[in-house]
Structure formats: structure tokens, C-alpha cells
């Protein structure tokens, strides 16, 4: 998989209440959720981001609640992938299960600022900053089982495929 987009930086411990506040959880409509994506971390986020953009965050991204509304909001807003130093485990699981590409890397945060464009090549395991002479940054390899889930198109397709 390859992704190219502008990046938006966030800090450590971005919780799922910040990604999609519970006041919007009376629906699971992706369009409505997308309109409030990252609202309590950066109220203007949805207005300034464009489809294809990439979220770059620090440690423990997606901590807190198990709400799948969080990766749904990010995906429906048009974010192509999330790169973080580490992910909280339920968010990590949810992202693979429902098909939001996420990658672990700790080297990118210091290298880039908001609005810079990056190119992610998950097959090669690299991230390049566009128009920069810097060496590409390495992505932590995606575990083989998670790759299988991605190839199948998420958990539900994976378990249906396994049966046939």
C-alpha cells in the first residue's frame, strides 16, 4: 500500500473521547461522525484537513474507550492512514478489523511539521518526506497476521473466507 498526503501532528495519549466525543455517539452514521473527527483535540481539524491527509501522533494513540466510532470517524473524514509511536490495544485491533491503515514509527514526529507532505510505502516499510533530502524513515513491520487481515479486507471478510 502507498499513501501520499499532508500531515497533521498530534501529541501523546490522544484518547478516543478526543477523536470522537461521546456526545456524538447517539449515532453510528460515518458521515455525522466524520464531521466531528478529532474535535476535542483540535476543534478546526475537519475544516482544514483534505481527503488523503495523514495523522501523525505520539505514543498510545486511541487510548480509552473501545468505541469503533473513533476509527470510523477518522476513515470517513478521508484520512488515508495514521502513523503513531504506539497505539492503544483496542484501537489497534479495531483499525485492522475495520480497515483503517495504521503504522508504528517513532522517528517521524521530530522530522516533520504540520502541512508537510509525506509518502508512505508499507510494502517497502518506509516513509519519505516529499521535497526533502532526509533519509526515509522506517516503519515497524506489520505483523503477518495483521497483514492477512488487511489482505482479506477486515475481520468479517477474513472469517467468512476462512470458512469457504
Amino acid at each position, binding site marked *: 500500500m502507498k499513501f501520499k498526503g499532508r500531515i497533521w501532528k498530534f501529541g501523546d*495519549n490522544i*484518547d478516543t*473521547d*478526543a477523536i470522537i*466525543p*461521546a*456526545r456524538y*455517539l*447517539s*449515532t*453510528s452514521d460515518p458521515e455525522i461522525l466524520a464531521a466531528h473527527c478529532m*474535535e*476535542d*483535540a483540535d*476543534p478546526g481539524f475537519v475544516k482544514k484537513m483534505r481527503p488523503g491527509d495523514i495523522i501523525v501522533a505520539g*505514543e*498510545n494513540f486511541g*487510548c*480509552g*474507550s*473501545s*468505541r*469503533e*466510532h473513533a*476509527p*470510523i470517524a477518522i476513515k470517513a473524514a478521508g484520512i488515508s492512514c495514521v502513523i503513531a509511536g*504506539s497505539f*492503544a*490495544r*483496542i484501537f489497534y*485491533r*479495531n483499525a485492522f*478489523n*475495520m480497515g483503517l491503515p495504521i503504522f508504528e514509527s517513532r522517528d517521524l514526529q521530530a522530522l516533520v511539521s504540520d502541512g508537510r507532505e509525506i509518502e508512505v510505502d508499507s510494502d517497502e516499510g518506509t516513509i519519505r518526506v516529499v521535497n526533502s533530502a532526509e533519509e526515509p524513515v522506517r516503519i515497524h513491520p506489520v505483523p503477518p*497476521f495483521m497483514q492477512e487481515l488487511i489482505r482479506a479486507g*477486515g*475481520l*468479517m*471478510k477474513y*472469517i*467468512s473466507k476462512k470458512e469457504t
Partner: protein
Amino acid sequence: MGMTITEKILSRHAGLEEVQPGMLINARVDIALGNDITAPIAIAEFKKAGGTAVFDRDKVALIPDHFTPNKDIHSAEQCKIVRTFAREQRITHYYEVGEAGIEHALLPEQGIVLPGDLVIGADSHTCTYGALGAFATGVGSTDLAAAMLKGELWFRVPETLKIVFHGRMRKWVSGKDLILFLIGLIGVDGARYKAMEFAGEAAGKLGMADRFTIANMVIEAGAKNGIFIPDDVTKAYVQGRAKRPFSFYASDPDARYADVIEIDISGIEPQVAFPHIPSNVRGISRVGDVRIDQVLIGSCTNGRIEDLRIAAGILKGRKAAPYIRLIIVPATPEIYRMAVKEGLMEIFIDAKAAISPPSCGACLGGHMGVLAEGERAVATTNRNFVGRMGHPRSEVYLVNPAVAASSAVLGRIAGPDELEGGGKS
């Protein structure tokens, strides 16, 4: 090679002799849980995958508890999806408003989750059932859909972090303070991907209510599950509730741990987690003058009868300070009934408390106690993230029930020792 209790439960449910941390396994699920927020997405995924019947109608629990009694039309529609599915599938453990309680208090109380079980729930606080010596973990809605369809799910066997409690709890200290102290010590990702096992002579002396509170909040340290070794206290709680067989597991003496943390609990005073992260804790003596607007006593963390008794002991003959909203939420109808019978409700009404039906609403800023801009709440709940209980510029301070009740009386964050005449226990 010896195994931990978590490894033993996982290996048994995967049909394997032995498992080791890092292994990916498929394991059988004893109970799969969803609520009115998470189940609608799971039901949609279940149907999209061609699902027509759940794997076992006795092993699925659907509890409308978050935005119930329905807070608005959208919530009513979500509850309707869950209700329709529960009727269609003849789900045994569906609890309608009036019978329903906060899921993580209700399921143990009704004997639906038991020691030795493997429980998954589309709610992060599913880890609460580890108090019974079960493996219980929060998952997303898609995982719930898969489990409802197949009765099994994939897991990565976690490493275990062993927490050993020594010493005796001081007066006004409870399980809430032990877990807040621990989260303050290791941080909100201090146990990320790991199991947390509670051991030591002081852990064995904890009652079930304190064990539930501690296991409930391991997710706030990033843990996959939290677990106590079942003992006589567990047996006394489960007897009379269980309607099916259950198993007690224990860790082997030569089990391997990622780390062992020893804590002398005698030195811990009541803890307060300041905004906006549960690890931002300090002892009650170091809080200073923090004026408040609202106090919430309830939730899956601290809405049990033991918590209400502590609050009532302090509120008896006292009133919430002027302009303070005191909201009390018994976690289940059974707890509500006990509070009425024991005369706690009269104490609460006299103290100017608003008593809510069982609901998760206020804890996550849904309804029944939402905060305005700039307001501060003291809450016995589990999260104090930005906007957790309402406006993004409101604040939540996490405490135990004794501190919450004392704070309501004084209008600022305070422990029972600051009350005139002290607290009664």
C-alpha cells in the same frame, strides 16, 4: 514451564496444552457483550457478513445502559436496533430498561460472568470481570460481530505484569485509591498490551467491590485485562448467583512475568486524578482549594452498594453545599432496591442529591449530568479526558466515594477528615 492464570484461561479456551506470551490463538468465548452504543455497529456487521443466527443465544449479553432511558431520538433508534435483534435472536441475557443496570455491575451480580470464563465485550471496561478470576477484555464492535457469529475470536497472548499489594489500607482508602495510585505510578500506557495480575496478602483481603473497582480501571493503564486469583471471597460472591459450572484457576509458582511491582498500600492516602488524564494523581492532602460545581457518585467503577453505603455514611445528617449538584446513580436495579431498603435513599434525598436510574449517561457526557463550559465535577468514575463529561472546557476529578461525598458537602475537593465532626464509617 509454569503459566499465569491469564495464560491458563486462554490455553483452555484455545484447546491448547500451553500458550506463551506473543502467541496468536483462536479462543472460545463464554460471554460476548454489547451495549446500545457498540451493539448497533456489531449487528450491522453481523448481518453484512450474512449472519442469521448467533452462535449461542445463552452466551450473548445485550445491555442497553449508556444513553438509556433514551436520551434523544437518535439514541432511541440505537436502542431499538438492539431490542429488535435481541427479540429476533431470543437473546437470553437482554435486559430492558427497568431491569437493566450498568453492564459491568449487572453481569457479575446476575451470575452471567463467572470465574474461569473468557469474556469479550464491546466496551473497554469489560476488564472489570477479571475481579472474579475470569479473562475479560474490551474489544470493538467488529470483534463483537465476529464473536456473535462464530463463538470464537483471535487473541494475542499478553505478557503479565504482576502487582503485589502489601500492608493495610488506611481509613477512607479503597480499591479506587489503589488503582489510581498505580496508574499514577506506571502511567496510562504502563501496562499497554499486558495482563495485570493482582497478588499479595493485601489483595486477598480486598472485598469483591474493591476488586471490581481495581480490575475496572486497568484499561486506564492500557492493560488488556486485569485479574485476581479467585479465593474464598470470590466463592462467597459467586455462590447463589452462578447458574452454570465455573472454574478457579491460579498462577503456577514458576509462571513468568514481564515485571513485578511491589506496593506497600499502608502509605497510600485517598487519591485524586486531576484533569485531563487518569495518571495525573495526587494524594488528597496535596489537592489545595479546588472549588467544584457537581459531584457524581456512580458508574461501573463505583456504583455498587458498598460505594453507596460509604457515601451515605458521610452524607447522613449533612447536605450538599449551596449551588452544588449532587448526582447519585445506583448501578443496577438490585442495588437501587437495597439502597431503598437500607434507608440510604432517604439520606441521599435529605442531602439534596438527585438520584438517577441506573445509566452510564453522566460518566461519558451523554445525559443526566452534562457539564457546561468552565464547570468542574468530582466523580467516582474512571476517565477525566478533555470533554469527557460535557463541554471541552469542563474538568473532571476522579476520586473514591468517601471523597466525593465529602466534597459535595464542602463544595470543594476534600476528604472526610475535613468535615465537621469527621466522617462516620
